[in-house]
C-alpha cells in the first residue's frame, strides 16, 4: 500500500502522542507502586466480598436459580412478581420494615445524640461510666442479649415483664409476648432502640469533644442565650461530619436488622409474619426455599432503599460529597 507521506505524519504523531501518554500513565503507576501495594490487600478483599457480591446480586436478580443448576435468565420477572404477586412481601415485609426503620432509625439517632450531649455535660471523671452504661447493650451484641430478652419477655408468670405488670395489677393474666402478633414488632422496636447506641453514638461523643470551646464564648457574646440555641447554632454545625457518619451507620444498622426477630422467637419465620422484615424475606427465599434468584432481587431492592436513605442523609447534612 502506498501512503502519501504528508497525511501520514500527523497520524503517526497522534498515535505516538497517545503512546506517550499511555507510557506516562504506566510510569506513574510504576512510580506509585508502593501506594498500590499498600492498598492491594484491602482492595482485593473489598472487591471480592463487597463489590462483586453486589454486582452478582444485581445479575442474579434477573435469573431463576436454585443454587445447584445454571442460573436461567428470566428478565424482569422476579421484580414483576415481587410487586404484583408476593403478598407476604407487599403486606408484611415492606410495611413492617418501614415502620421498624422509621422508628428505630431516626429515633435511635436522635436519642444517641441526646444522650451523647448529656454525657458531654457531665464532669470528665464520670463520663466513662455513663458512656459504658449506654454503650454496653449494643456491645454485648444480639446473640448474648437474646438470653436477656427471652427471659424478660417469657410468656408465663416467670417472665420479668409479665411478673412486673401482674404485680402492678396492669394485666390480669400473663401475655405471651413473643408469639403474639400484636406485640412482636413493638418488642423488636424497643429491643433495637435499646441497642442503638453503638458506633454512631461513640462517634458523636468524639465529635462533641472536637467542638472548639471558644465558639461557645463567642456565641454567648453574639447573643446565644440558651443551651438549646448553643446546640443548634454551634454544636451541631461543628460536628457535622460525625453526625453524618452516625446517620449512615444508623441507616445500615436499621435496614440490616432482621436477626432480631429470629433471635426473639426462635423461628426463621415469625408467627403470622408479625415481625417479618425484608431481611427475613431474603433469608426465607434464599435459605429455606432456595430461590436464590428471587432472593437476590429482593436484596437489590433493599440495597436501593438504603442507597436513597443514605443520599437523603448526605443532603440533610449538606455534605460536599455528592451522592
Amino acid at each position, binding site marked *: 500500500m502506498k501512503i502519501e507521506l504528508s497525511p501520514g505524519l500527523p497520524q503517526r504523531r497522534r498515535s505516538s502522542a497517545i503512546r506517550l501518554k499511555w507510557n506516562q500513565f504506566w510510569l506513574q503507576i510504576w512510580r506509585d507502586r508502593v501506594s498500590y501495594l499498600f492498598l492491594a490487600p484491602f*482492595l482485593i478483599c473489598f472487591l471480592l466480598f463487597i463489590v462483586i457480591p453486589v454486582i452478582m446480586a444485581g445479575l442474579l436478580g434477573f435469573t431463576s436459580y436454585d443454587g445447584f443448576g445454571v442460573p436461567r435468565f428470566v428478565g424482569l420477572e422476579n421484580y414483576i412478581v415481587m410487586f404484583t404477586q408476593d403478598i407476604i412481601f407487599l403486606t408484611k415485609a415492606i410495611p413492617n420494615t418501614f415502620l421498624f426503620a422509621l422508628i428505630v432509625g431516626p429515633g435511635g439517632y436522635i436519642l444517641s445524640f441526646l444522650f451523647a450531649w448529656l454525657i458531654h455535660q457531665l464532669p470528665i471523671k464520670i463520663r466513662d461510666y455513663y458512656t459504658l452504661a449506654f*454503650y454496653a*447493650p449494643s456491645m454485648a451484641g444480639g446473640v448474648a442479649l437474646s438470653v436477656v430478652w427471652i427471659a424478660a419477655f417469657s410468656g408465663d408468670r416467670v417472665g420479668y415483664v409479665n411478673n412486673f405488670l401482674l404485680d402492678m395489677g396492669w394485666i390480669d393474666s400473663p401475655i405471651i409476648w413473643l408469639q403474639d402478633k400484636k406485640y412482636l414488632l413493638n418488642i423488636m422496636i424497643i429491643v433495637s432502640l435499646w441497642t442503638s447506641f453503638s458506633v454512631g453514638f461513640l462517634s458523636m461523643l468524639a465529635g462533641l469533644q472536637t467542638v472548639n470551646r471558644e465558639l461557645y464564648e463567642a456565641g454567648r457574646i453574639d447573643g446565644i442565650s440558651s443551651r438549646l440555641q448553643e446546640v443548634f447554632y454551634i454544636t451541631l454545625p461543628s460536628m457535622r461530619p460525625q453526625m453524618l457518619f452516625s446517620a449512615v451507620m444508623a441507616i445500615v444498622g436499621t435496614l440490616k436488622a432482621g436477626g432480631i426477630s429470629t433471635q426473639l422467637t*426462635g423461628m426463621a419465620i415469625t408467627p403470622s409474619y408479625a415481625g417479618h422484615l425484608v431481611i427475613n424475606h431474603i433469608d426465607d427465599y*434464599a435459605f429455606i426455599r432456595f430461590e436464590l434468584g428471587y432472593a437476590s432481587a429482593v436484596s437489590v431492592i433493599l440495597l436501593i432503599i438504603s442507597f436513597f436513605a443514605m443520599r437523603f442523609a448526605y443532603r440533610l447534612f449538606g455534605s460536599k460529597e455528592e451522592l
Partner: protein
Amino acid sequence: MMRRLRKITPFQVALVTSFTALAAFMSLPIIFILNHAFKPQNELFLFPPRFLVQNPTLRNLESLLLHASNATVPFTRYLFNSMIVVVLTLVCVILVSTMAGYVLAKNKFHFKQLVLSLITLSLMFAPETVGIPRYLIISGLGINNTYFGHILPALASPVAVFMLIGFISQIPGEVLEAAKIDGASQVGIFTRIVLPLSMPAVATISIFTFQGVWGDVETSTLFMQEETMRTMAFYVNSLLSGLQNSVAGQNMAAAAALLIFVPNLIIFLLFQRKVLETMVHSGIK
C-alpha cells in the same frame, strides 16, 4: 472553663439524677447477664423471678464448658475457633486497613478518587443483604471450612478504612515530608510515623472489629459446613433457638451470654481509656 465556674442549680441536680437513673435502666440487660450466668438451676426458674443472684455458683459455666453438641464437637472447640479467628482477624484488619487508610489519605495516585467514592458508598453496605453471592464466592475460592472463610470477609471493612482515612488525614503533611527528606522509605514512614500516630483510631477500629467478629454468626452459618469450624457465637445462637419454650439449656445459655459479653467488655474498657485520653491530649487537629 466557664462551665466549671457556673453554679450548680437544683435543675442540674435533678437532671443528673434522672440521667443516672436512665443510665442504670439502660444497663439492666448487662446487670442481668452478669447475674443470670451465676444463678443455680433452682434460681433460674424461681417464682416470683429474682433479678439478682442469691447463691452464686459456677455450675453453669462448668456445664457449658463440658457440654458437647451432638456429643461430637466439644464446646471448647467452638471457643478455640472463636479465639483463633478473632485474634487473626484483628491483626489483619488493623494492618490491612491502616495501610489502605495511609495511602488513601496521604498519597496521590490514579484511581484514588474512584476507590474513595466506592468506600464512601459501601459504608451503607450490610453483608447480610448479599449473603448468597458471598456464599458463592467463598465456595468458588474453595475457602469454606477454613479459617480464611472467617477472616477474609472481615478484612473488607470499609468502616475501618473510612475512619482511618479521616484520622490519618489530620496528621500534618510536614511531618511526613520531613521524614521523607531524612531518607525514610514509604514503609519506614508507615511503621515509624503513621502507625504510632494513628493508635487512637486503631484502638477504635479494634473495638468494632472485635465486636463484629466475636458475635458474628453469618460466616459460621453460611461458609462453614463442618461443625468443627464454627465459632462460639454460632453455637450459642443454636442453643438459643430452642430456648423459648424449654427449660433445658437455660443455664448454659446464660453462661454463654456471659462468655460472649465479657471479652467485649474487657477490650472496650482497655481501649476506651486510650481512645478518650489520646483524643483529648493529642494535639493533631
